């Protein structure tokens, strides 16, 4: 199952050419700076804007081809706008029911109750939107979009414009969405942090064109892309909880390249987690250090090196087939004689648990 989209969009002084084939599962992020055409592309996919000559196929449904154009209200999609845009004249409950009422019973796969529980808005149902906080409003908007049982969920920077507390409030709900519903999501964002936490697949956009596409962990560690040169450059790892150590209060997490040891989290054995390791938290040694306080040390092979500013280099390492980034000084790289193919040990100072 894939999503095929081809658009040639021309708007006052802005041209956008897009030819994409995306996986129709998991979260696909459209990522790029403001004004790169992310929202325009999302609106074209939703059918909110009609661009002649476009082509769009979602799974086995053709939404646009030649003169054929399915209007948005006949497309089984959900759309979350940047501002919650709740209907001000309706209560939260009526906002949620607005879409469901218009979906035939046979096409309902998600119940109203399910969406209410998933987003934790049961206590808000009888309120008017004007009396909700920003975070609450956006949760209702997400629930409202989910309640129509969409076959594709489109989200346009749902966290932008919210304060940090509201963001922290919504992120877990978005993540549970990812884990519990099998709806493909296209998520527009310009915030790397959101992308690393949630996305499975990444489309990098710049000035109206697609720079690169690929699986998120690949994209984050590709040295030819700007993501690996961000000050927050990092690699992510999908891991499962292998066990807990009661005495030392630690949790062991297995991933394809080995095992991470982190401060104990109350997670059941076998559950899936996403880890992030920042490039600046990885140092390299030539020999396995045994007299060190660092717990996470992995044998690795240098894959690629690229200069970063005047004093640093960014090194892409392969750890058991998974790529990791390390930021070291040019001097260290020279002293250790780093070059592609060289075997080293990656010492990871800190690991962030993303979910």
């Amino acid at each position, binding site marked *: 199952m894939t999503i095929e989209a081809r658009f040639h969009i021309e708007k006052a002084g802005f041209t956008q050419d897009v030819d994409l084939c995306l996986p129709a599962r998991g979260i696909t992020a459209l990522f790029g700076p403001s004004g790169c055409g992310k929202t325009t592309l999302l609106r074209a996919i939703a059918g909110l804007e009609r661009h002649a000559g476009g082509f769009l196929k979602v799974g086995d449904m053709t939404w646009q081809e030649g003169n054929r154009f399915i209007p*948005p209200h006949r497309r089984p999609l959900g759309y979350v*706008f940047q*501002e919650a*845009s709740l*209907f*001000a004249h309706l209560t939260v409950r009526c906002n949620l029911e*607005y*879409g469901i009422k218009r979906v035939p019973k046979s096409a309902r796969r998600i119940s109203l109750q399910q969406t209410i529980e998933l987003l934790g808005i049961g206590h808000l149902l009888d309120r*008017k939107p*004007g009396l909700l906080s920003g975070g609450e409003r956006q949760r209702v908007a997400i629930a409202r979009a989910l309640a129509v049982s969409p076959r594709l969920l489109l989200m346009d920077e749902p966290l932008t414009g919210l304060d940090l507390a509201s963001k922290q409030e919504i992120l877990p709900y978005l993540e549970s969405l990812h884990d519990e519903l099998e709806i493909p999501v296209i998520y527009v964002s310009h915030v790397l942090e959101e992308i690393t936490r949630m996305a499975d697949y990444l489309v990098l956009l710049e000035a109206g064109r697609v720079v690169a596409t690929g699986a998120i962990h690949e994209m984050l560690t590709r040295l030819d892309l700007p993501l690996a040169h961000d000050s927050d450059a990092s690699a992510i790892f999908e891991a499962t909880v292998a066990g807990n150590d009661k005495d030392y209060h630690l949790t062991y997490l297995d991933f394809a390249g080995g095992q991470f040891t982190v401060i104990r989290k109350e997670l059941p054995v076998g559950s899936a987690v996403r880890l992030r390791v920042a490039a600046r938290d990885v140092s390299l040694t030539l020999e396995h250090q045994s007299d060190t306080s660092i717990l996470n040390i992995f044998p690795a092979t240098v894959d690629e090196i690229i200069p970063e500013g005047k004093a640093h280099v960014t090194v892409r390492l392969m750890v058991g087939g998974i790529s990791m980034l390390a930021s070291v000084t040019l001097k260290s790289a020279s002293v250790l004689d780093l070059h592609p193919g060289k075997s080293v040990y990656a010492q990871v100072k800190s690991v962030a648990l993303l979910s």
Partner: protein
Amino acid sequence: MMLSEPDLTALAITLKMALLTTLILLLLGTPLAWWLARTRWRFKFLLEAVIALPLVLPPTVLGFYLLIALGPHGPVGELMESLGGRPLAFTFTGLVIGSVIYSMPFVIQPLQSAFAAVGRRPLEVAATLRASPLDRFFTIAVPLARHGFLTAVVLGFAHTVGEFGVVLMIGGNIPGETQVVSIAIYDHVEGLDYTHAHWLSGGLLLASFLMLMVVYAINRRFRSFQP
């Protein structure tokens, strides 16, 4: 009872005229206002200026042109005659046509600005929630623009009740057919019958004040629900 038989008839004609006018204006004005609020047509301003004309023109000017158009030698009058009817000048129908044109800006403008205030976003949201264009209009645009409808109805109605110049020009002053309250008052004053003039004028003043008060009170309540 301080109102005479002819006064009551004039009152009934006034109400009938105002109700009909308001109804016609709502039916014609709603789609027009909707279109004006959303179109990107280059020459929209021309149409807007035409609709606003009755706001600035002396009613006698408007009435004069209507009289010519609706009279036996005017385009509309000739059309009516060729269809076997009679000219519309000095008839109740002619009066309603005149009122519709005269009160048009009072209905269209509040509706247009209320629709414009709704914006595109709620309608786009409704589209992504499976609502067809007509469905969106009735379930989203109209309820969100309700204060505009209330203002339009009351202003359109009250303004029609209060018209004088246009009515005098095209309606004449035929008791039982085209004599409305405002003209009856004028007649009473001309005939130095101040008692009846007082009763009619006072009644109109009170009714108008009550209507406007209700509009402002309700509009305030609507607004307090908006975010």
